[in-house]
């Protein structure tokens, strides 16, 4: 990976003094993941260019067996071996910059202290920069710092023009700045645009960020994004950094826009629907007088927390097929910190709804909240057998989306489901037919209704059914 820094300040070759690297020599520096070379493709009175070239050693980058994996940008199993780290500018280049130009970054120069403190015409080129957010984002982060930004998207493969652009840009920055500022901008913003770090982000990274960002980050309009990405999306660290930045900030702005929000746009209508759905399920459980309940497919435990809050539920079992989801649920419920009496009410089990599970027999009620639509239709009979045939709780509460209502969601394309993992979504008629058939087959009676604001034509956004087991002869 390559970065060049050019100046036309006369005498241009003084750049060598600022960088403390002689223009007529080729110097190399050992890095944990390879070697950095500094050399000057041009160096005369009028124009001087320093090139920082990082030669990555793939063996060192991939690391040994069992070592903590460097964070490559993607969860691609071969990504540890087949990746762009040798070519694209990234945190590796950033680290090299810090090591090779240490005094220049601090703005110190023994030979040319005045020049170091002077803004001079500079051009920076990074021929390949992985830029998550595209060329436009590169403009947004560099332009407020006084750079004229040219970011050209690199095509993904010239052999397949239909594939369009890659995630890489060829970046050129032009401006009149102090060399130290230019280097600090690059040091912070290259990994930010790449949005990946080759090392584990520890709490001392907050200090590093504030040090490198001194004088420019606090007022940067994209400081929230920069902080979040620089700190590898670790919320606690980003929050701390933003708080400290707010103290530094001169302008007295409301703190609200500093919140560490998720980069995913919030689906506001769904959030309140989720609450109403939980309320409706809880009401159904109260109505049937259940005290020992199953939350089948509990996921991260959103409903479980609500169940735990009500003392009428003396035994609460959450099941999910994903052991990871159960770990999240346990953390959310603070299971390890609950008083014993509370803890004893709750069980979390890994189970799959397509298999019979003896542990689930004998409960008062079971909840299938937004679960059935995550199953491929051919697997539904197995769920019906496992829940209604085998576990046979006295009451089963089922919720699922009403697909008719989807047209009310802006931004949800026609024929698209509300969640990427939904295998189907039912109309009211389809759901009612399924409920009727299952109830008849397994000896239950059923009522069907809706949750959320009812649309006169389309019905409610969420469908609800309560199935009650008939007394067995």
């Amino acid at each position, binding site marked *: 990976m390559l970065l060049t820094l050019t100046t036309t300040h006369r005498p241009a070759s003084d750049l060598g003094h600022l960088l403390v690297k002689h223009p007529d020599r080729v110097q190399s520096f050992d890095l944990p993941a390879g070697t950095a070379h500094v050399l*000057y493709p041009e160096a005369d009175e009028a124009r001087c260019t320093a090139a920082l070239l990082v030669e990555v050693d793939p*063996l060192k980058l991939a690391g040994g067996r069992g070592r903590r994996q460097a964070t490559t940008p993607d969860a691609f199993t071969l990504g540890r071996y087949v990746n762009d780290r040798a*070519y694209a500018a990234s945190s590796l280049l950033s680290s090299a910059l810090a090591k090779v130009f240490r005094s220049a970054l601090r703005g110190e120069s023994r030979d040319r202290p005045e020049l170091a403190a002077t803004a001079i015409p500079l051009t920076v080129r990074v021929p*390949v920069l992985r830029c998550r957010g595209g060329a436009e984002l590169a403009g947004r982060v560099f332009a407020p710092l006084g750079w004229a930004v040219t970011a050209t998207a*690199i095509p993904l493969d010239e052999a397949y023009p239909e594939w369009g652009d890659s995630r890489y840009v060829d970046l050129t920055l032009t401006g009149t700045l102090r060399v130290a500022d230019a280097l600090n901008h690059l040091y912070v913003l290259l990994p930010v645009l790449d949005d990946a770090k080759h090392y584990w982000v520890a709490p001392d990274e907050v200090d590093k960020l504030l040090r490198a960002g001194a004088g420019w980050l606090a007022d940067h309009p994209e400081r929230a994004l920069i902080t979040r990405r620089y700190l590898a999306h670790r919320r606690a660290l980003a929050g701390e950094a933003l708080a400290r930045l707010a103290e530094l900030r001169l302008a007295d702005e409301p703190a609200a826009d500093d919140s560490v929000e998720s980069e995913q746009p919030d689906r506001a209508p769904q959030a309140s629907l989720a609450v109403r759905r939980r309320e409706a399920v809880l009401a159904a459980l109260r109505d049937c007088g259940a005290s020992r309940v199953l939350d089948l497919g509990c996921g991260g435990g959103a409903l479980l927390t609500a169940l735990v809050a009500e003392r009428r539920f003396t035994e609460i079992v959450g099941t999910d097929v994903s*052991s990871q989801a159960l770990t999240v649920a346990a953390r959310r419920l603070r299971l390890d910190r609950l008083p014993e009496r509370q803890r004893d009410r709750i069980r979390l089990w890994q189970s799959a709804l*397509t298999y*019979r599970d003896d542990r689930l027999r004998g409960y008062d009620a079971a909840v299938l909240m937004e679960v059935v639509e*995550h199953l491929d239709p051919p697997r539904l009979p197995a769920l019906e057998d496992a829940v209604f045939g085998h576990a046979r709780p006295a009451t089963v509460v089922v919720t699922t989306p009403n697909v008719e209502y989807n047209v009310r969601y802006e931004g949800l394309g026609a024929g698209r489901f509300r969640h990427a993992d939904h295998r189907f979504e039912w109309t009211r008629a389809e759901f009612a037919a399924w409920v009727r058939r299952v109830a008849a087959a397994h000896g239950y009676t059923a009522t069907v209704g809706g949750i959320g604001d009812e649309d006169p034509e389309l019905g409610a956004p969420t469908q609800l059914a309560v199935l009650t087991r008939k007394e067995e002869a």
Partner: protein
Amino acid sequence: MTILDIPELALVALVGVSGAGKSTFARRHFRPSQVLSSDAFRGMVADDENDQSASGDAFDALHHVAGIRLRRGRLTVVDATNLQPHARAGLVAVAREHDVLPVAIVLDVPEALAWERTEGRADRTHGRQVLARMQRDLRQSYGRLAREGFRKVHVLRGVDEIEAAEIRYEKLFNDRRELTGPFDIVGDVHGCREELEALLVRLGYALRRDDAGRPVDAAHPAGRTAVFVGDLVDRGPDSPGVLRLVMGMVAAGHAICVPGNHEQKLLRKLRGRDVRLTHGLAETMAQLAAEPEGFVAQTAAFIDGLVSHYVLDGGRLVVAHAGLKEAYHGRASGRVRSFALYGETTGETDEYGLPVRYPWARDYRGSAMVVYGHTPTPAPEWVNNTICVDTGCVFGGQLTALRYPEKELVAVPAVREWYAPARPLVPAAPARPDTVLDLADVTGRRHLSHPYGTLTVPAENAAAALEVMSRYAVDPGRLVWLPPTMSPCSTSTLDGFLEHPAQAFADYRSAGVERVVCEEKHMGSRAVVLVEREPGRFAGGAVHTRTGRPFFGPPLDDELLARVRAAVDAAGLWAELETDWLLLDCELLPWSAKAGGLIREQYAGVGAAGRAALPAVLAALDAAATRGLPVAELRGRMADRAAEVTAYSAAYRGYVGPTDGLRGVTLAPFAVLAGAGASFADRDHGWHLALADRLCAADPEFFTPTRRQVVELADDAAVAAATDWWLALTAAGGEGMVVKPYAGLAARSPKGSLLQPGIKCRGREYLRIIYGPGYTEPGQLAALRTRSLGRKRGLALREHGLGLAALDALAADAPLWRRHELIFAILACESEPVDPRL
């Protein structure tokens, strides 16, 4: 010298007053870890060995630890006064809970001596009167110990006797771990003497007959030992004849025998108890009446001497009449004996009035193989490393033996039905609807035993597989097989190569294979196609990936199946193979049809970055060179990197083909795995490829043929030709080849072990997209050559064995849950962490 006999596994209670020398005795005769002292436990829970208020908690802890030790099969000695009945009752309860024998050793010293010793202790807490009370308690204990449940009571009186005592360990009767076989384990004989003779002869035993021509012994020339699982008598035509033969074999050391419930009942009858002459006992009594009186007495003594179960072969084999759950292996108690003889019943009776048996084998997770009889079944089936070998000979079924360790079943048919069964023979496993699966069949740590091997699935792998299986896979009814992972050939040391045909051939040559087939490795995605002539048991069929996911999804998969169905129709394979469904192992081309996103997002991106970065680097270096800077060496390296990126880009571009729906997609079948009632794992690859060729001929637009070379490994010219073929194939951008034993999927080595079903030998250029664009650089290559293949090979063989077993189970129409546990185990194996580059 007094010898104290105690079982190897026992709970030993030392009994004696304070100062009797119990701790000294324990130290002298037992390891410190074996001794649980009440003083130590008081110290442990209360920081004070003499804090009597802590006694309750201390004994709770002591009993708990004793229980854990006994569960784990460790001899445990309790050093406490144990003078009061309630204290001893606690120990007896712990021992019974774990089915071990409680033993008491009483140390009785004169009270004066005990007081002298107690007085000498600095931390003495009680006076002389307490000691006197203890002495009284000891006197009263004598008569009670045996009644309280102690199976052995040793009393040592006086210092001299205590000093002179020696412990001698006795093995439990059921512990015959030193017998390593090989064994032939014979199912319930029930008086079928004729069939027993035939079976023994079939197994290779030589019968010895008495003057009257009656068989009285049988010996195997190779020194094998017969093991009888009990129920020798009743119902059949010649119970005395069977007894005579088996008693002779046991006496001669040619057989061992465990009792069945029928022997037990016969013994009670012979001892004059009031036993009803039902279930065939009447026939036996009548037959015995014709025997001389001495024979009856001999029979009674024989039965009386039988041990209810045996642990054999270092603990790897357990034989009991009705089976035995793991917690009872090598244990001795009334309930262990009762389980071994009668099994566990649920307390219910079935519609024939017979007790319903609890399916203990379904829950069995032990590592020891359990072989048993008792429940007649039409065909022996492995359930969690257990097998019932009672195949109802007396009811007109078969008399079956299991050869151990070979795990082969040998059976002879009944001469006729000697006795009408009270209910029809049903499989031992509980009947369940065939579409229903139980979580207990797949989760938790599981030991799986199948005709091609055994394996243990760790619980965490099963948990991971559960998520994939239930959320993403084709439904289990149509998921009948999964392809095993494939190991690459041994690492080549040829200059510039990580993999080379020479190694692939050498791998098979050293495994004793003479003839292999080299099949072109298609540049696509693995696709398993289950196609049905008309929608039936498989709902038309399925196309799935190597992890069981639907290939494209509903409309396209159905279209693809229709295309395959039509080709099979046209090729006339339904009639020829006498089947209405086929299972095909294929590659679906091009790779981009399934993995387009991966190619674009991962591979192309790396190429784009490399192709843009390196020219800029070279330009900078060229400029520096013009200035006279010494960058030639660095420039040389960077030019190499640029060439590598170009080669890498060419490699991934080879996997891209334009597709639109099924247009542009082709299927390359290379094995026909199974059809109705048949696994084709035994057919050679010539057969498989010939059928594949006929599908290609039937629809050349949709099917891609597999190029191949058949190579005799002894023929150097053929080997060289195949090597050249591979070089040409890979030089033209091909992925490489897969070398397989020509004999077919289930090929075995001359020594009889299962062979790797295929070894991949990947092209030099292709490997750039696996190991990185510059892996051919000598330094990297040298480091990569240290790669280790052992784990990958082991995994490939384990998965392959499971796959073969799944094909057999499919052919045999085994119940869904049994087939599914094999498929599930393959998926669970895939959670094993292996180098993804292999």
